[in-house]
């Protein structure tokens, strides 16, 4: 399960990640994008965003 890594210098990683530069955010998204792109592409039908959100929220504690 992904968790915030423990800090070794007393800095909360979650707070440190709040002030990252746009370039760092873009690199993080690229990392996520590359990982996701390895998954098999599916030819799924488009659905309204509100329907997609409801589907994503199924089973999630809100």
């Amino acid at each position, binding site marked *: 399960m992904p968790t915030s890594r423990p800090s070794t210098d007393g800095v909360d990683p979650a707070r440190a*990640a709040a002030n*990252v530069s746009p370039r760092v955010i*873009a690199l993080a*998204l690229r990392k996520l994008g590359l990982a996701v792109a390895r*998954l098999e592409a599916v030819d799924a039908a488009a659905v309204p*965003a509100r329907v997609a959100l409801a*589907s*994503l929220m199924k089973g999630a504690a809100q």
Partner: protein
Amino acid sequence: MSFEFSAPPRSSGGGAEPSPAHKRALGLAELFQRALQQAPARVGRVKGNLLIFVPGVATWTIVTQGPGRGVYDSATDEDVHFAMSCADDLLVQLFVGATDLDLPAALASGHLKLEGDVMVFGRFVELITSAT
């Protein structure tokens, strides 16, 4: 082109200081908007609309096609071709440079949920990185 965006919830303390999650959300929204401000032909290469949901923090509908192109801070009636839920702590892990993203574990735990055409997200990320 229209851009609609309002800030996600601030920290509950009532102070002026945004929460770390809020700051992360603002950083993401800024990148999304910047990506869509590129030439329409480049944005059109994404070939799809996206929904990105960070539970408890923010929801965005990103429209890359048609007259409604823009970033909206809610789930709209616009059709989307890819939808993703990404937990804020997974964003933290990415932002602080965790060496590897354990994608199977993130999917199995529900920290990451994906629906639709993953290639749409890949092309959108390319658009973002070309704008930074």
